[in-house]
């Protein structure tokens, strides 16, 4: 391998293809490792098993790739996903055949729904045994077909290198997504060719990145004449790294910006144009602005049902412009006047350049009145920890600079509402699939990717227990993430819906009887752990936690158990029919 690397170095920056005659013969496992090194993969989240032993044998001597031994393949996939969201680089997973592969399914589906670039390598039984119900055999290509952007079964070891290169290309280009490569064991042991050629030949795969000129002009014309324009920005602005372009445009044109859950951080919430998040638990002013606006510019967003509420009541007075790199997102849920297929990073500045600053003075008066009269409510108490207060304190103590990773439910919505997001790649959450158990392992992945940034996992007592075993990994690798459990002894969002829509019949949503002592649980792994039952203790615990840099910290925050998350657009209601909160 060293010999090869030396050769590559001699050839300079490697954009020149290696001569075909320099093709090397090695076994499949070596081809895999060489190709990953060549693709500058620095971290793999994996778990060994029979079918991938040849790869693990090569990893034993490989020092350029850090292999992180996770404790369950689902968590490993979430970790790779968190790594990808925090760094912008593809996350890489390596698991064995059968159960190794099937355990990754939830993680792959999570990544697919949020367009996260992952490359998942699964072992497979030897080619000759496929279909025989061999030990640890599962048709993982078949199982993951609907939840991957593309997947491969390698049938010839000579295809291995270019399949791997293609897999990374597909995962990271266009609308990103997970790609799975299934590797029969004999492919890993058989000798094949490794060329080192970087060229990828996929003549039929050409994502559109440049927007159509005349559509861009139409968009600019609409925005120039708008009286009540609004930018609605989604995860695409982060995946497409268009946050600077977005911020520049919104500030220059003085157009308000609301972001989706996935778009948080693409536009700094400290700017006066920010309206925070829209949708089911969005701010009053974001939802009202969406309903009242006359031109809506959707940037890398997909009009998800949690964003739109009842479709016929969604932004009924606006002309809509939709920029998306995936044509199938356009016109899927909502008809738009100006569809623009392209990369938001290319398209936004072009629209910006052609747009004359619209007169939004009256519009801002209306919006500012909404902001004044209907701010997000933060209940505070001296005796009990209010969940919203908990998020505000975390925001304060991390100065809004942390990578915040959440699970799914009430704490997720409160984190989205009350943490002050000013940077992209700083809010990692399973938006589309809504995967409980995502938060902690994804936070760990983010910490591997961004060792210099503080990483806070905000989770619940329900979600944390789904992947709590990864404490072993976090302790082993000395990952200093802060895990803040919003412990209300129940599945908060389920409980909230049961309270509001099921006559307070709390069917199977109360976890109190079975919940562990989270402090003892964490300590048994060797993690630091604290508990707080009132706001004063909470502050002390947060201060202490921030000082710890050599292991994970679990903070068990006993919060008010019956707090509901508002504003809330009930299922089937329009955005302006939101409920603002309990009467005190």
């Amino acid at each position, binding site marked *: 391998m060293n010999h090869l690397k030396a050769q590559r170095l001699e050839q300079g920056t490697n954009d020149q293809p290696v001569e075909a005659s320099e093709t090397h013969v090695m076994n499949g496992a070596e081809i895999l490792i060489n190709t990953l090194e060549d693709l500058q993969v620095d971290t793999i989240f994996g778990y060994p098993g029979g079918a991938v032993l040849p790869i693990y044998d090569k990893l034993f001597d490989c020092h350029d790739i850090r292999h992180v031994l996770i404790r369950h393949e689902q968590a490993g996939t979430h970790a790779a996903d968190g790594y990808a969201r925090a760094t912008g680089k593809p996350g890489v997973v390596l698991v064995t055949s059968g159960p190794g592969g099937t355990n990754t399914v939830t993680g792959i589906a999570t990544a697919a729904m949020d367009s996260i670039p992952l490359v998942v390598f699964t072992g497979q039984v030897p080619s000759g045994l496929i279909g025989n119900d061999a030990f640890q055999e599962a048709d993982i*290509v*078949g199982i993951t*077909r*609907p939840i991957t*952007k*593309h*997947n*491969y*079964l390698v049938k010839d070891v000579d295809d291995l290198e270019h399949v791997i290169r293609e897999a990374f290309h*597909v995962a990271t280009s266009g609308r990103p997504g997970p790609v799975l490569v299934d590797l029969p064991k004999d492919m890993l042991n058989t000798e094949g060719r490794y060329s080192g050629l970087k060229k990828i030949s*996929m003549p*039929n*795969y050409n994502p559109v990145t440049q927007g159509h000129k005349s559509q861009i002009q139409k968009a600019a014309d609409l925005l120039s004449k708008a009286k009540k324009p609004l930018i609605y920005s989604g995860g695409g602005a982060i995946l497409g790294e268009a946050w600077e372009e977005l911020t520049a445009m919104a500030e220059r044109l003085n157009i308000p910006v609301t972001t989706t859950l996935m778009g948080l951080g693409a536009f700094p919430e400290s700017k006066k144009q920010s309206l925070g998040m829209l949708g089911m638990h969005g701010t009053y002013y974001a939802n009202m602005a969406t309903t009242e606006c006359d031109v809506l510019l959707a940037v890398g967003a997909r009009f998800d049902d949690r964003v739109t509420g009842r479709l016929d009541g969604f932004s009924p007075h606006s002309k809509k412009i939709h920029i998306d790199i*995936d*044509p*199938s997102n356009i*016109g*899927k849920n909502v008809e738009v006047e100006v569809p623009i297929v392209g990369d938001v990073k290319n398209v936004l500045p072009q629209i910006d350049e052609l747009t004359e600053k619209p007169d939004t003075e009256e519009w801002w008066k209306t919006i500012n009145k909404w902001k004044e009269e209907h701010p997000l409510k933060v209940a505070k108490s001296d005796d009990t920890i209010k969940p919203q207060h908990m998020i505000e304190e975390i925001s304060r103590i991390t100065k809004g600079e942390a990578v915040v990773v959440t699970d799914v439910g009430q704490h997720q919505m409160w984190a989205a509402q009350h943490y002050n997001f000013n940077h992209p790649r700083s809010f990692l959450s399973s938006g589309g699939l809504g995967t409980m158990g995502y938060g902690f392992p994804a936070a760990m992945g983010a910490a591997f990717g961004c060792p210099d940034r503080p990483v806070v996992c905000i989770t619940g007592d329900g979600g944390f227990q789904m992947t709590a075993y990864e404490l072993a990994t976090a302790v082993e690798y000395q990952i200093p993430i802060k895990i803040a459990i919003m412990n209300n002894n129940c599945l908060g969002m389920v409980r909230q819906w049961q309270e509001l829509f099921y006559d307070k019949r709390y069917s199977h949503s109360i976890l109190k009887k079975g919940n562990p002592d989270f402090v003892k649980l964490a300590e048994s792994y060797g993690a630091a752990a604290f508990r707080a039952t009132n706001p004063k203790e909470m502050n002390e615990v947060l201060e202490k936690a921030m000082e710890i840099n050599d292991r994970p910290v679990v903070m068990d925050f006993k919060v008010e158990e019956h707090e509901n998350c508002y504003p809330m657009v009930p299922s089937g209601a329009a955005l302006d029919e939101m409920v603002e909160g309990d009467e005190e």
Partner: protein
Amino acid sequence: MIPTDNGQTKTANKHTLSVLVNYNLNALSRIIGIFSGKGFEIDSVSFGPGEESGLARITITTHGDEHIIEQITKQLNKIIDVVKVNDLTYDHFVERELALVKVAATASSRTEVMQVAQVFRAKVIDISPEKLSIEVTGNRDKVDAFIGMMEPFGISQVARTGTVALKREYSGSV
């Protein structure tokens, strides 16, 4: 197909898609999976090697409103192995389906069955004392009509290829 008041068949929401795709079963599964997974309909599907080696041409007939057809086309285009999707419905195109129909034909009914077959330019390809197997080719409507005409005699088996279609090269008025 929805019969309308004047007895004609409403075909406006029928679409014939011609999909050129890399020849592998994973690709075929993905294409079918789009339909089953996203709730789209397939009326018929046929799959075979295309004009270039390594490529297959899949002809799918489906139905749905404009919005659904647009989503189907876009979703198919997203599949990495798909080279090209053509909705032939918007073009002049030729389509054919082949069906083999095994129908009861005793000495008393055989002549009548064969006469009907002749009207449809269908061919008898197998014969036994009790049954005839008949090959009929045409567009979907013609094949449907032929099968309808055979029904009173007693059909025991039908095998249909599904529609195959190509864009017409010359569509000017003669």
